[in-house]
C-alpha cells in the first residue's frame, strides 16, 4: 500500500518543522565561518565541511526515530556503486546543498529533504535560512513557499524569452569527450544570437534552490548534469506539485529515474504541450550528450 495523501502531508509537516526549528539555525550560524577547515573531496572545488556531516547525522537520527521503517540516503553517507534507491519509502537528503556557498557565506546554501516511494519523489522540503525561504510540498497536496501556496501565473513559455538556471559545476577538466566542454558549448548555443538567444541565465550555486525557483516560476527552467539524487529529489516533488515537469538533460530522455544525474526542470504556468515544445527546442541546443 503506498502512503496516503494524509500520511504524505504529515511527513511534509515533520520535515518543515525539523528544518525550521533545528537545522536552519545551524546552517545559518555556521555559514562563512569555516573557510579554513574544509577538506577536499573529489578535487579542490568540491568542499565538504564538518558541519555538513554533523547536520546529516542529526537529520538521520530524527527521521529514523520517527520513521524507523523508512530507508535513508544522505550525501555524506552515500557510497558510489553500492547505495541503491529501492521501491521502499526512502528519505533522500542533502544536509547542506550549495557547500561552496556555505563556505563562502554566499546566502544560497540550504538543506534539502526528499522522500521517494517506488523510486518517485513524493515529499520535498528545502530550506534556505539566510533568505528565510522554505519551499515544501507532497504528492497531491500542492506546493508552498513558507505558508503561501505556490501559484505560478499563467504566461507563455518560449526558449528565446526564457531565463535558465545554469551552473559551472565541479567537473572542470577540458577535453572534447568531457562534460565540461559540452556544458560550455551548450551555454554558448543557448546565449548566442544564432542559437537559443535566451533572455539570460542565472546561477545561484545550489541545485535544490534552482529547482525551487523553477517550481515558483522565478526561473523558467534549470539544466544540469553531474548532480545527485539528493540535490534534486525534494525539489522535484515541489516542482511537480507546482505544475512543473522534470525530464533528462539529454535529448529524448522523457522519463528518467531520480538518480539519472542529468536533469532538465521546466516551470508550470503553461500547458503540457507548451512544455513539450520548450523541452524539444532546448534539447536542440544541447551539444553532445552529458555522461555520468
Amino acid at each position: 500500500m503506498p502512503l496516503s495523501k494524509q500520511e504524505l502531508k504529515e511527513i511534509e509537516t515533520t520535515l518543515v518543522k525539523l528544518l525550521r526549528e533545528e537545522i536552519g539555525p545551524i546552517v545559518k550560524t555556521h555559514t562563512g565561518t569555516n573557510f579554513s577547515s574544509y577538506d577536499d573531496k573529489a578535487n579542490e572545488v568540491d568542499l565538504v565541511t564538518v558541519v555538513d556531516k554533523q547536520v546529516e547525522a542529526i537529520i538521520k537520527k530524527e527521521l529514523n526515530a520517527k520513521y524507523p521503517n523508512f530507508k535513508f540516503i544522505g550525501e555524506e553517507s552515500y557510497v558510489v556503486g553500492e547505495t541503491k534507491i529501492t521501491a521502499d519509502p526512502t528519505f533522500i537528503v542533502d544536509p547542506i546543498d550549495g557547500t561552496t556557498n556555505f563556505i563562502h557565506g554566499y546566502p544560497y546554501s540550504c538543506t534539502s529533504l526528499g522522500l521517494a516511494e517506488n523510486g518517485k519523489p513524493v515529499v520535498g522540503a528545502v530550506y534556505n535560512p539566510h533568505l528565510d525561504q522554505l519551499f515544501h510540498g507532497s504528492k497531491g497536496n500542492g506546493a508552498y513557499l513558507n505558508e503561501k501556496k505556490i501559484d505560478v501565473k499563467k504566461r507563455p513559455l518560449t526558449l528565446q524569452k526564457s531565463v535558465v538556471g545554469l551552473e559551472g559545476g565541479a567537473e572542470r577538466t577540458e577535453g572534447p569527450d568531457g562534460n565540461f566542454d559540452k556544458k560550455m558549448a551548450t551555454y554558448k548555443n543557448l546565449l548566442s544570437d544564432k542559437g537559443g538567444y535566451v533572455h539570460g541565465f542565472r546561477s545561484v550555486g545550489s541545485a535544490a534552490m534552482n529547482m525551487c525557483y523553477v517550481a515558483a516560476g522565478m526561473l523558467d527552467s534549470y539544466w544540469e548534469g553531474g548532480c545527485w539524487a539528493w540535490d534534486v529529489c525534494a525539489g522535484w516533488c515541489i516542482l511537480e506539485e507546482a505544475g512543473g515537469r522534470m525530464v533528462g538533460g539529454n535529448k529524448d530522455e522523457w522519463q528518467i529515474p531520480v538518480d539519472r544525474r542529468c536533469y532538465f526542470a521546466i516551470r508550470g504556468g503553461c500547458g503540457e504541450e507548451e512544455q513539450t515544445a520548450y523541452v524539444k527546442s532546448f534539447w536542440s541546443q544541447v551539444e553532445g550528450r552529458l555522461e555520468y
Partner: protein
Amino acid sequence: MTPSDLLSIEKFVCDLATNKVGPIIKSKSGTQQTYDLKTGSRKVDIVTVIDKQVEKLIWGELRAEYPDFKFIGEESYMKGVTRITEEPTFIVDPIDGTTNFVHDFPFSCTSIGLTVDKVPVMGVIYNPHLDLLISASKGNGVRINGKDFDYKEKIEGMGPLILNKSVVALQPGSAREGNNFKCKLATFENLLACDGGFIHGFRNLGSSAMTMAYIAMGYLDCYWDGGCYSWDVCAGWCILNETGGRVVGANQSEWDIGVDNRTYLAVRGTKIGSEEDQTKYIEDFWGCVKGKLEYD
C-alpha cells in the same frame, strides 16, 4: 560636500528607495508580460513601462529636494549627448535587473548613486523582494537596512583573497554576437577550467547593482563585466569603496577608470595588512581574460 552633508543625502535617498520605489518594484515584478526592446536594440535588451515610471518618480523627488544637482538616468540617457560633469550628479537605475523584474527572479532592485567631481560619493541599493537596503556615503561607511555594517569583522572571518579560492560573479549581458561575446565566454571558460583560474565557482544574479552590494557584504569575491553603464555601478561602487573594495577596468592594466568606463572588475576588500593580496588578485584575474572587451 562634507561627510555629514552626504549622510543626510544618503538618508533621504534611503527613504525614497524603501518607501516609494520599493513597493512599486515588488508589486509589479513578474506582471509585465508586454515590454519593449530598447531602441535599436537586441531581442534580449528589454525595458518595461514601469522602468520609465519609476525613473520619473525618482527624478521628481530628487529634483524637488536637490534642485541644483544634475541627474542621469538609464531611461532618459541619450547616447553621445548625456555627459557626466564635475557637478554633483545623481546617477540612477530605476530598476536594475529588468530581465529579473520581468521574470520575477527576486534580484531586481533600484540603484541610486551620486558623483561629485565624477567620483561616486553616495550610493543606495534597495531590493524589495529580499527587503535588503544597502547604503553608503564617502567617509561614512556602509549601512545594511539602516544599521552600521562592520565590514572589517566580516572580512576578518573570510578566507584569503586568492583567485583559485574565489567565487566570481559573471554575466553574459545582452550582446550575444561579435568580439565581446566571444571574449566573455572564452574568459568564463578559462576562469573555470582546472588549467586556468580554477575558481571555486561563478554566480550570476542578473543585476550589477545587487552583485556589487553582495561583494561589499562579503558574499562574493569579485565581479567582472562589460557592457554595463554608469547607473549600473555608481551606487555599488561607492558602497564597495567604503568596505575597502576596489573597482578597476575589465581589461589588463586598466587601473584607473571613470564611472562610465563600460567595463569593470570589482574586487572585495582584504584584511588589514593584506592589501597587496588585492593587487595580486586583480593581476591574476586579468591574466585569465581572453582577448579584450571594447565598447563605444
